[in-house]
């Protein structure tokens, strides 16, 4: 699992560079997100614009990452391609995560909080 990181103030913008977030990469993703949280990141934007497929294991890893925050912080998602957005809606994850089309919109949303 390759994740590109950059900062916008105290916001961590993490972009998944792989095209699939699935059972094969779910454990690596979970570990990476766990590392971000244990490093003290509490405001994370996950850019999934390069991801064209997410399965239930990938979703589980996303949920796991959100739980790691323990209510103290937030993970926003941006750039979900149509098939991935469809998966989020199918599993109601669009009600759990705030999802933005553009990365800058997500940054703006977190910046004003």
């Amino acid at each position, binding site marked *: 699992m390759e994740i590109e990181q950059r900062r916008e103030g105290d916001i961590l913008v993490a972009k998944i560079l792989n095209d699939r977030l699935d059972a094969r990469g779910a454990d690596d993703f979970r570990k990476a997100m766990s590392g971000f949280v244990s490093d003290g990141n509490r405001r994370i934007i996950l850019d999934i614009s390069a991801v064209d497929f997410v*399965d*239930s294991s990938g979703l589980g890893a996303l949920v796991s990452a959100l*739980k790691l925050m323990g209510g103290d912080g937030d993970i926003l998602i941006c750039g979900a391609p149509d098939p991935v957005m469809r998966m989020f809606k*199918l599993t109601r994850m669009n009600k759990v995560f705030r999802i933005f089309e553009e990365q800058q919109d997500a940054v703006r949303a977190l910046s004003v909080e």
Partner: protein
Amino acid sequence: MEHKEIKLVIDSELKNVSLVGRTINGLVSMVSPCDISPHDIELCVVEAVNNCVEHAYGKQRGHEVEVRFALGQDRLVVDVCDTGKPMDQRHLAEADVAMLEIDHDDIDGLAEQGRGLPIIKEIMDAVIYQSKGGKNCLSLTKFFGSGEKTRRCTGGQDGD
């Protein structure tokens, strides 16, 4: 042609699942009517193959997962088969679309797994599991919409 069938066989490793998924997506894109989403069928097949690798074979390599893709006059059928530990039939019976409903105010209560079968049942029209003679098969069926019998997405031409 009345019936088309293709069989894919992979070794039981998660790294091979995307190969099957992409192939099924491509097949559906090429030969199925427009009202069937290639991504949806790929998702169901990936979930089913993941279950074979993770549960039937306990993530052990060296076993076969067989995926048969068949296209009939009014339906698409994908059978996903293994020769590992059979699934408890109750898992499929109890997998309900309602399991996808969530309480978004209860983050700690959100499940991290167990969505595969509910997703499959939500998308497919019929899901049947059979275990016979040491072979376990999950059969996924999607019917075509009315009036869409032979219309293809590429150019809207009649099929063969």
